[in-house]
């Protein structure tokens, strides 16, 4: 696996080296004189030599957009500290766009511009070490990309999502922060297999910390913090976008706590999901393992159905769960007669440590389907409450579930009452004016001024899942 990956990345790099002619207008970076840094900021593939083109903003180009338009594959755009009122569109493959200082290179949408960066159908684009705020849509957005990376990014007070990849595969989002979005701070949507990693990120004061509608397949969310959102990690299925159901996401080694925040901006789903740490809403075949989850009004880890009232297509059967996203796009939807209930199936909840989740630490619920028929299992968790009661006895992993393992109705989860709760939950607060923590001063990318350009390979880094332990509690 590892050697294959290296081979693949080397071949990608050699192609991009050939493809990237130096831009006449670009300055030569001082960094070309220094040896390549031994440990780049990420363990994405290492460049074998410094990129030729470095385009400085504003020294060489007055705006980021001008620099992006002038860049060729393999080029590095270096942005000096300052406030940039732009909505930058990126359509060139394999360019790297980097702020010299994460906390003082500020993209400001001024509540007028839609996306800080929108990478449109371009592959291999990496964005690093800067802040985007006050955009009406998203801080950082990739769509239709094969290979993407966001590192050391801060997204604060944006109208839909903080950091967002849609219909894109082969991604890495890392060392980043998102706050103040009514939808999700981090969102990977509409991909299967996604081949993506989210690691070492913090999401707080969003409607949802993470949303992954119809996204999965080698998708890993690891070593991250989701706190003080309405709800923490909420992958879901729905026919409003393609590639349903949501499948095969691994959520591992995260700290998820206090996601009951009443004063955030919030879409309807966030209000409905409020008070839950990890809420699997109609997802299937996900693995939720070795997370520490505490202080939630409802569930720590809940597997629940997702009610879709405005459904666009019927729910695919189990035989379609291996269908990839590209193939599903070719299918003609069939409008169902009524609302859909996407049940959570075949998920595994393993070795998590949970406390003080007031409805239940671990839970599974439906609205009409026998729970043992859903195939979700729970094992080796440290917890004190569950719904139904004795959930680990009822639903152990590794053997087929049946009605006979115990009383599935005792203390079961009544998710229908959540619809009622949502009616009286604290309403959404306008995202433009919501009270948020000040933008934190966060860790900079190492050697931002000199690190070579590393375009985003279509292969995310391998994560050693076996070595991940339950993280400590944060007080």
């Amino acid at each position, binding site marked *: 696996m590892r050697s294959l990956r290296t081979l693949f990345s080397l071949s990608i790099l050699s192609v991009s080296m050939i493809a990237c002619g130096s831009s006449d207008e670009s300055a030569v970076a001082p960094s070309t004189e220094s040896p390549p840094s031994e440990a780049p900021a990420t363990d994405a593939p290492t460049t074998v030599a410094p990129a030729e083109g470095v385009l400085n903003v504003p020294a060489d180009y007055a705006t980021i957009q001008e620099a992006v338009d002038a860049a060729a594959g393999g080029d590095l755009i270096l942005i000096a500290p300052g406030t940039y009122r732009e909505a930058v569109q990126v359509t060139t493959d394999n360019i790297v766009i980097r702020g010299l200082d994460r906390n003082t290179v500020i993209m400001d949408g001024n509540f007028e511009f839609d996306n800080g960066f929108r990478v449109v159908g371009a592959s291999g684009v990496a964005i690093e070490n800067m802040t985007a705020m006050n955009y009406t849509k998203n801080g950082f957005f990739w*769509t239709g990309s094969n290979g993407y990376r966001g590192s050391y990014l801060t997204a604060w007070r944006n109208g839909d999502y903080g950091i967002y990849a849609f219909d894109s595969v082969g991604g890495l989002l890392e060392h980043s922060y998102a706050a103040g979005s009514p939808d999700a701070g981090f969102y990977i949507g509409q991909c299967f297999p996604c081949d993506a990693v989210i690691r070492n990120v913090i999401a707080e004061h969003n409607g949802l910390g993470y949303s992954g509608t119809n996204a999965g397949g080698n998708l890993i969310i690891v070593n991250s913090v989701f706190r003080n959102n309405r709800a923490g990690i909420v992958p879901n299925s729905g026919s409003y976008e393609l590639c349903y159901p949501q499948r095969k996401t691994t959520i591992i080694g995260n700290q998820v706590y206090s996601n009951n925040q009443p004063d955030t901006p919030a879409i309807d789903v966030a209000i409905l999901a409020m008070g839950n740490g990890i809420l699997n809403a109609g997802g299937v075949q996900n693995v939720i393992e070795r997370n520490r989850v505490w202080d939630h009004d409802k569930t720590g880890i809940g597997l629940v159905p997702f009610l879709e009232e405005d459904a666009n297509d019927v729910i695919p059967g189990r035989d379609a769960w291996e269908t990839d996203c590209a193939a599903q796009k070719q299918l003609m939807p069939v409008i169902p007669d009524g609302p859909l209930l996407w049940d959570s199936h075949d998920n595994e909840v393993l070795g998590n440590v949970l406390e003080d989740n007031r409805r239940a630490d671990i839970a599974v619920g439906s609205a009409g389907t026998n729970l043992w028929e859903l195939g979700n299992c729970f094992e080796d968790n440290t917890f004190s409450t569950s719904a139904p009661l004795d959930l680990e006895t009822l639903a152990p992993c590794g053997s087929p579930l049946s009605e006979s393992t115990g009383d599935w109705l005792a203390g079961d989860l009544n998710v229908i009452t959540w619809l009622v709760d949502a009616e009286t939950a604290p309403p959404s607060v306008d*995202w433009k004016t919501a009270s948020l923590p000040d933008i934190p001063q966060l860790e900079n990318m190492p050697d931002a001024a000199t690190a070579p350009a590393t375009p985003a390979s279509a292969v995310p880094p391998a994560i050693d899942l076996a070595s991940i332990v339950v993280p400590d509690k944060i007080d």
Partner: protein
Amino acid sequence: MTSIRRAIRGLLVVLALVVVASSCASDPRDVRESAHDHVSMLVDSAAVMGAPDRPIAGPQGAVGQFVVECPFSHALPDDPIVHPGEPGASHMHVFFGNTGANADSTLASLLAHGTTCEQALDTASYWAPALYHDDVMLIPEKSVAYYRAGLEVDPASVVAFPAGLSMIAGDPRAVEPQPASVVAWSCGNGAAREQMPPSCPSGRGLRLDVTFPDCWDGDHLDVVGHREHMRYSSGGRCPSTHPVHVPQLIFSVAYSFAGDPMGLKLASGGVLTGHADFVNSWDQDKLEDEVKYCLQRDVVCGVTSGRVSG
């Protein structure tokens, strides 16, 4: 449609207009407008533009698109396309996007104004007849403008609307249900497209969905009657008379209104008279970029927001 059927339809339209005009005789403005549109109806009809092969709905994400959401801007009894220079001459319209649209608007004047849209460079003007419930005008929450290639149209062939292009979709004088592929009602983000307003549940309010033509004659920004320069594609092709593939604009006006649709009517007449108007006063460079990067490359450049409003 045969010429005989067309003549019968024309007669029906005239009869209906007489009924409409007499029923509104207490309001001289309505009479004048009906008479005006009566004349233009005999010259041009919405039906000459054709219709898409089927209603366009379903999950977002299958085809390239860009989407602009624009909160309600203002309401005026003006129509910059049908009644230019005649303030107050139209039925009541609700305007979205450009904040300065009125009867005296020109491309230059529109370009000098701002927009309610979340995309600040979309300074285009969009409007539709106001919707009333028991004679109380409903203030829409927002509009959503979806720009896509027409059904089965080669996306690479689509070019931006020329600056100043003006067009109307739907028939403000319709007396029978219009094709749902042109004018439809729906609830929330649902895919069902109804010819009559359905009873929508609370939280998933009523929408009016109007699909504009996607073939342009390549010559006229507007014409007398406002119809002859545009056609709908069929089978992915534009007619030879209107050979230029432009984006298909699907314009959706979202209301919070839910419940019994009895008592609803449009300012243009009953609920059958759905229509919408568009003047391309986008920042032209931005529009051309959106078409080039999102439609021609078939990339989903955005989907509608999960936010209900604001």
